[in-house]
C-alpha cells in the first residue's frame, strides 16, 4: 500500500473518529477535548486551541488548548477573524491577523451566517508543511466542529431560558404560597382560638398524602387546600366565630355556610392543582352522609376530602376552643378511632397513625405533625396506642 493511500485512510479514519466523538454521549467538555485530540493527532500539531465566540460579550473564550500562551489567547480579537473565509483554513504568516506565538494556521468557524469561534493549530511536530489535502481535511473538520459548537450554543441558550423560566416559576410559587399564608393568617386571625389552624391542617394533610404515596404536585395541592379550607370564615362574623356559649340552630347553620363560602371563593382561582375547591368544599362531609354542605357519602368523597376532614378534626380536637378545653393527643386519637366508618375513612386513619408513629420514632427526617402537638404528651403511650390501631386497621377484615 502506498504511503499516500495509507495517509488517506488515516485521514478518513480521523474523520470517523471525529464524527464518533461529536455524537458521543460524553458531556460537552469531554467531547471538545476528544475532538481537539483528534485534530491535533491528525495534523501532528503540538500546539492548538479551540476558541468559542460568546455573542453576549462579543469575546472569544478558550474552550480547550495546549501549548499556547493563555494570555495571548485571551487577546485574540474576533473582528479580524470574522473577515476571513468561513471555515477556510488561513495561514497566519506575519501575524497581522493574530498574534499567538507558535500559531501557524487558523480556521474561523461558522455555521451559515453565525460566527462560532476559531480553531488554531501550530506547525507539525514533523516540521512538514500543511499539504493541500490537509487544508481540505481541515475545512471538513472545521464545518463539523462549527455545527457541534453551534448546537451546544443553542442548547445552552435553551437551558438558560429553561433555567430562567424555572426561576420565575419558583418565584411565582413563593409569591403564591406567601399569598396563601397571608390568607390563612387572615382566616385564623378572625378567631383567637384557631391561630395557625390552617397551617397545621395543611401540614397534617400533606404528611398523610405523602405517606399515601401521592406525588409532590398533588401533595402541594392538598397543602394549599389545607391552608384555604376555612377561607369562607372570612365572611362569617367575628362575634359568631368567637361565641363562648353553644350555637343556636340558626347560628350553627350560619357557621356551616363557611365550607360553601370557601368553595365559592376558591372556585374563582385557577389553581395549578386539581380538586382544591372540592377538598375545601367538602371537608365537613362524613362517610355516613350526615356531614355538610351536601351530605355526600362514601364513593362521593375523594381521598383528598377524607384526608382534609381527618386532619381538620384532629387539629380541632387538639386545639383550645372558646366553648371547650382542648383534648390531649391520646383522647383525640381514640375519638377519631370511634368515628371510623361513620365519619372517617379507615385507610386514611391507618396512614395517619403510621405517619405519626414514624414521626414519634424519628423515622422521618422532617416531622410535620409532631412539632405541633402538646409538648406534655407522653409519646410512648401515644406510640403504643397508634401501634394497636395500626395492627387493628391492617388486619384483613379492614
Amino acid at each position, binding site marked *: 500500500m502506498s504511503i499516500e493511500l495509507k495517509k488517506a485512510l488515516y485521514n478518513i479514519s480521523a474523520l470517523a473518529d471525529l464524527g464518533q466523538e461529536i455524537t458521543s454521549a460524553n458531556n460537552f467538555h469531554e467531547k471538545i477535548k476528544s475532538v481537539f485530540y483528534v485534530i491535533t493527532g491528525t495534523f501532528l500539531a503540538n500546539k492548538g486551541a479551540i476558541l468559542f465566540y460568546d455573542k453576549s460579550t462579543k469575546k472569544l473564550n478558550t474552550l480547550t488548548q*495546549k501549548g499556547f500562551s493563555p494570555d495571548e489567547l485571551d487577546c485574540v480579537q474576533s473582528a479580524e477573524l470574522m473577515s476571513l473565509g468561513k471555515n477556510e483554513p488561513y495561514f497566519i504568516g506575519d501575524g497581522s491577523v493574530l498574534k499567538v506565538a507558535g500559531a501557524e494556521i487558523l480556521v474561523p468557524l461558522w455555521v451559515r451566517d453565525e460566527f462560532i469561534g476559531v480553531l488554531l493549530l501550530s506547525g507539525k511536530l514533523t516540521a512538514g508543511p500543511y499539504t493541500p489535502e490537509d487544508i481540505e481535511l481541515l475545512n471538513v473538520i472545521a464545518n463539523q466542529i462549527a455545527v457541534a459548537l453551534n448546537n451546544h450554543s443553542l442548547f445552552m441558550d435553551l437551558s438558560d431560558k429553561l433555567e430562567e423560566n424555572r426561576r420565575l416559576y419558583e418565584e411565582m410559587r413563593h409569591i403564591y404560597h406567601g399569598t396563601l399564608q397571608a390568607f390563612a393568617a387572615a382566616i385564623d386571625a378572625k378567631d383567637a382560638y384557631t391561630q395557625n389552624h390552617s397551617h397545621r391542617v395543611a401540614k397534617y394533610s400533606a404528611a398523610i398524602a405523602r405517606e399515601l404515596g401521592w406525588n409532590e404536585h398533588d401533595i402541594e395541592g392538598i397543602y394549599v387546600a389545607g391552608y384555604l379550607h376555612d377561607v369562607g370564615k372570612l365572611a362569617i362574623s367575628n362575634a359568631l366565630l368567637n361565641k363562648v356559649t353553644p350555637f343556636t340552630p340558626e347560628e350553627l347553620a350560619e357557621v356551616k355556610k363557611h365550607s360553601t363560602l370557601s368553595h365559592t371563593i376558591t372556585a374563582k382561582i385557577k389553581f395549578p392543582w386539581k380538586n382544591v375547591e372540592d377538598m375545601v368544599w367538602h371537608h365537613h362531609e362524613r362517610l355516613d352522609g350526615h356531614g355538610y354542605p351536601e351530605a355526600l357519602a362514601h364513593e362521593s368523597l375523594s381521598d383528598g376530602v377524607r384526608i382534609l376532614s381527618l386532619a381538620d378534626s384532629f387539629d380541632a380536637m387538639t386545639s383550645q376552643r372558646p366553648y371547650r378545653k382542648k383534648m390531649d393527643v391520646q383522647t383525640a386519637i381514640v375519638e377519631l378511632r370511634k368515628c371510623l366508618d361513620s365519619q372517617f375513612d379507615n385507610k386514611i386513619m391507618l396512614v395517619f397513625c403510621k405517619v405519626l408513629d414514624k414521626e414519634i420514632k424519628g423515622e422521618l427526617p422532617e416531622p410535620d405533625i409532631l412539632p405541633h402537638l402538646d409538648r406534655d404528651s407522653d409519646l410512648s403511650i401515644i406510640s403504643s396506642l397508634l401501634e394497636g390501631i395500626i395492627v387493628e386497621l391492617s388486619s384483613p377484615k379492614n
Partner: protein
Amino acid sequence: MKSVQFKVVSRLDGDAAVIYPKGYLNNLSGESLVLECGMYIGKGITKIVVNFGETDLINSIGISLLLQIIEDLKNIKGTICFTNMSKFLRDTFEMLGLMQHMTVFPLESDALQYLKAGTV
C-alpha cells in the same frame, strides 16, 4: 472501532520508568498514559520506556496523546523509547513520519540496555 478498557501499569527499572499501556489507545481514557508519564517526570525521572506489547491499535486521539508525551520529555531534555510495537503501530508511525522523532526498539530489554549504557 470496538473499545477495550484502557489501563496503564508501570514500574521503575533503575533510573528509568517502564510504562505498559494495555488496550486500545483511542479515547480519553488514554490520558492516563500521559498522566503516568507526567507522574514520573514530576519525580525527576527523565528516561521513560513505553512498552506497547499490549496495545495493538491507536487512532488520532492516541497519536495526539503520544505527541504530548514526546513534547513533555523534550521539554525536560529526557529520553523516551517505544518498544514491542505491533506492525500496525509501526506502520502508522512510519506513515505519519513520526519514527524520526522516536527512539524505537524491538524489545523493552533493548531500550533499558540503551538507557543504562548512557548513550543518550
